[in-house]
């Protein structure tokens, strides 16, 4: 750690770090486009030019080595003048279509303009270079070449992160544009991240565009339940007046588990996690009544998609009524695992297989009774057909379920990921259907309390 002076104030930063990242930790933002923590330094956008005392010219913050006692000025007149100049260049051929741009509200260019620039354009709209406005790049990525600031983040993402090399910069000067080789579309399981790394509205998601303005979205930190990796995500949801809350998209959240990215399977899994409006309270009370009189008729099957809280609640339920309790975690899909690239995807497509094993629930089913109650959160109940019981009661978060419960994004819950790391996912909004813990409470006739010590063993 060394000390540097930023605008007369002393900060202690890591000598080997990057100036932009290090100052971000102290809540100081240096505007930038091309630098990205996961993609490294490119140094082509020049947006991060700052005044370094003792240097003749302004230096780019992303590629300036940190030295003991160096003094930089990020709010000086010179820095402001340079930033205005760079922004003026960026806006020469920019179409200025923020009102219809999906990125508006989370666009770096827009933010920097409001912060530093606020000048009128000196180029008339008629003189601007026109490029493609809507080019389908495949895998849900739509490219708008006019809005591009040519930071090359998307190009470097396909080179460094996915090793698929689909994108490149074609042309030269003002005619430069992001291009595909021979029109070959992007085809990799992480393509959605290209939309996220793009600092401006040049890459927009075919899935999300024109659905919602980003400032109407409420973001909640959560954990992706798509596979065992347990990637950290932001869930963007919105509740319109007199309507139910809707999840609009998942975005990656910076985290040590997944870095800066998530896979497309997880990204688009939000579609199966919307609210289901169905009142099954009569069925629950009927089941509760039946359990109290002849519980031995039932066995319980827990899938590995449930949280630790829910599993332990079911354990309590099973021991109270002396029912058989079994676990099912075979959601393997070998083709899901990726060999090259980011390697975030784990073949088991449920979040809590390790938790199931740790709680001692990974027992194979041996048929004792005639009825089976299956608890499963997630997309489908296909696996339920494997079990040959007279009567299978499916409790889950999708339409096929007999009793609908809150989905894994609508309740707080802990899971253990493939590396036995404890992951906490926060409920995005209050569900309409009861949570599994509430159902268990009703079946038992008393409130199930979760023993927090169970989690301490995994932390």
């Amino acid at each position, binding site marked *: 750690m060394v000390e540097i002076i930023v605008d007369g104030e002393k900060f202690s930063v890591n000598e080997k770090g990057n100036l932009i990242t290090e100052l971000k930790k102290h809540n100081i933002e240096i505007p930038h486009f091309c630098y990205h923590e996961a993609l490294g330094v490119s140094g082509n956008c020049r947006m991060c030019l700052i005044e370094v005392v003792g240097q003749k010219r302004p230096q780019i913050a992303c590629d300036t080595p940190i030295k003991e006692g160096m003094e930089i000025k990020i709010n000086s007149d010179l820095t402001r003048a340079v930033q205005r100049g760079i922004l003026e260049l960026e806006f020469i051929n920019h179409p200025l279509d923020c009102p219809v741009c999906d990125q508006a509200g989370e666009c770096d260019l827009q933010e920097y303009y409001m912060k530093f620039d606020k000048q009128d354009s000196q180029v008339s709209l008629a003189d601007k270079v026109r490029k493609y406005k809507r080019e389908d790049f495949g895998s849900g990525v739509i490219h708008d070449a006019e809005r591009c600031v040519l930071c090359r983040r998307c190009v470097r993402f396909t080179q460094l992160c996915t090793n698929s090399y689909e994108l*490149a910069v074609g042309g*030269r000067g003002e005619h430069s544009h992001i291009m595909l080789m*021979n029109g070959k579309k992007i085809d990799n399981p992480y393509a959605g991240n290209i939309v996220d790394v793009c600092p401006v509205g040049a890459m927009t998601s075919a899935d999300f565009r024109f659905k919602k303005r980003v400032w109407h979205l409420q973001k909640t930190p959560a954990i992706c339940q798509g596979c065992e990796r347990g990637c950290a995500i932001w869930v963007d949801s919105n509740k319109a007046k007199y309507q139910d809350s809707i999840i609009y998209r998942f975005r990656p959240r910076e985290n040590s588990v997944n870095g800066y990215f998530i896979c497309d399977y997880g990204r688009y899994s939000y579609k199966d996690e919307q609210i289901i409006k169905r009142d099954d309270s009569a069925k629950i009370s009927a089941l509760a009544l039946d359990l109290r009189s002849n519980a031995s008729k039932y066995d319980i099957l827990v899938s590995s998609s449930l949280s630790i809280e829910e599993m332990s609640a079911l354990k309590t339920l099973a021991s109270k009524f002396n029912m058989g309790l079994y676990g099912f975690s075979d959601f393997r899909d070998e083709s899901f695992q990726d060999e090259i690239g980011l390697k975030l995807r784990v073949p088991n497509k449920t979040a809590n297989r390790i938790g199931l094993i740790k709680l001692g629930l990974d027992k194979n089913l041996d048929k004792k009774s005639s009825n089976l109650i299956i608890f499963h959160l997630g997309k489908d109940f296909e696996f339920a057909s494997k079990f040959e019981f007279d009567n299978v009661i499916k409790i889950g978060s999708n339409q096929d379920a007999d009793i609908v419960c809150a989905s894994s994004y609508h309740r707080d819950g802990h899971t253990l990921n493939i590396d036995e790391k404890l992951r906490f996912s926060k409920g995005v909004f209050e569900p309409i259907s009861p949570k599994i813990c509430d159902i268990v409470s009703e079946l038992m006739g008393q409130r199930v309390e979760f023993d927090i010590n169970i989690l301490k063993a995994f932390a």
Partner: protein
Amino acid sequence: MSFEFTKDELERLDDLRNKVDDDRALVLPALWILQRRQGFISSEDILYLEKTLGIRAIFFAEVMGFYSMFNESAKGKYELKFCKTITCKLRGSDEVIKAAEDLLGIKMGETTSDGLFSIGESECLGYCEKAPCMLCNLDQIGDLTKESITELIDRLRRENASR
């Protein structure tokens, strides 16, 4: 007939490969060889380059897009490139270009139907002391006048007709 490197050319590229750290340094030399021999570089040729040299096609495509002197489609046997920058303009290159267009019956950026000539423009050739100037394939020709361009085109036509 698609393009293929000769053994000698491949050896030259391999020699070069040993001298550089990054294989991508071979992109320009490979494209030069290809363009000198064939006159243009099509997208099939780029795929051939990817296969023989093991360098991703997208890098070739990037370089092709950047340098305007790589042709993507067939051009005439003689490629006339007129300097379009200010010195030549002041010294009357417009008149010369007009003369060439009239003589060949084509506009800038086009190729004659016999496949002999194509004309285009180029950035400053660094030959301002002899403005207006142009490139005829790789030869730099300066002090252009209406007469000299007429003479040049006639000569090239005659040379090719006599064969």
